[in-house]
């Protein structure tokens, strides 16, 4: 689902890259603050910074370790393309997975770092389109989806994960379409149905895999 170079016009791509750099710096500052004070924060009193829901690490070094391990999980899972329809594959984005475990700020940061490594080292997604990819999959798919999850989680945990995953993928696809149509690459109304139809299965797949991964992690942390 990574946008390649050539699909977006340069001014939009550069604008998104600049905007996401600001968000990245802010999240980095928040995560750094958490990393340097995490040992004094007791579990449960960190709702604003959203450290994590699984208390498998304590202390500064272990907090950074946790971020790295989740980044590794997401990187590996994004490499695994699953055959979904005839001649179409899809992979997990992992935005909700990262945000639920790490919180919105660290989730965004981890997702962005994975996209940066994928883009620079493996040519997965364009360099100019990096800002757009971070916006679609890390900001919308992780940061905003986290608040959808938070709004529903008190009523039903599984439903919260399911809905936030659907929102994460479908809204990422929607904003990707908006960016492509603003760039003049596609016509919005003519391609809306095709875009959403293609990503509906991905969204369902994301929800199922995220639920399985969270359960697996919860089980491993017991």
């Amino acid at each position, binding site marked *: 689902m990574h946008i*390649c170079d050539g699909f977006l016009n340069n001014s939009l791509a550069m604008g998104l890259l600049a905007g996401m750099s600001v968000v990245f710096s802010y999240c980095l500052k928040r995560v750094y603050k958490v990393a340097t004070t995490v040992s004094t924060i007791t579990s449960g009193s960190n709702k604003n910074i959203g450290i994590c829901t699984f208390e498998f690490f304590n202390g500064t070094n272990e907090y950074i370790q946790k971020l790295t391990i989740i980044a590794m999980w997401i990187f590996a899972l994004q490499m695994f393309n699953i055959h979904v329809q005839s001649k179409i594959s899809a992979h997990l984005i992992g935005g909700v997975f990262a945000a639920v475990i790490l919180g919105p700020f660290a989730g965004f940061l981890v997702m962005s770092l994975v996209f940066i490594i994928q883009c620079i080292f*493996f*040519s997965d997604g364009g360099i100019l389109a990096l800002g757009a990819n971070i916006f679609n999959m890390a900001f919308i798919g992780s940061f905003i989806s986290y608040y959808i999850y938070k709004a529903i989680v008190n009523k039903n945990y599984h439903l919260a994960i399911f809905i936030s995953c659907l929102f994460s993928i479908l809204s990422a696809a929607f904003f990707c379409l908006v960016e492509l149509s603003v760039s003049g690459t596609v016509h919005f109304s003519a391609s809306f149905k095709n875009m959403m139809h293609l990503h509906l299965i991905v969204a369902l797949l994301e929800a199922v895999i995220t639920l399985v991964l969270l359960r697996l992690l919860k089980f491993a942390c017991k």
Partner: protein
Amino acid sequence: MNKKTILALFPALIILSSSLFSSKYPDTLETFAVNQGFVKQYKKIVLIFNDYTLPFISNQFLSSLCAGIIGLALLYILYKMVKFFIK
């Protein structure tokens, strides 16, 4: 083996499975680009490795596996650097 090691080894296992079983078909956005006819606008810029393969390894499985391991190693190096600067 402690649980942290297991959690850290899990991505390596996924990469191994990915190298063996990952689908070679295009993903949803590529399919969308083909359907809407703008796939020709694609500009490929390769900085280091191309699409999770290493140019000097001809075997597809090994190439993909090594690329994945390099990706994980990069994240580990990043972790070590962050840990060094926070100390």
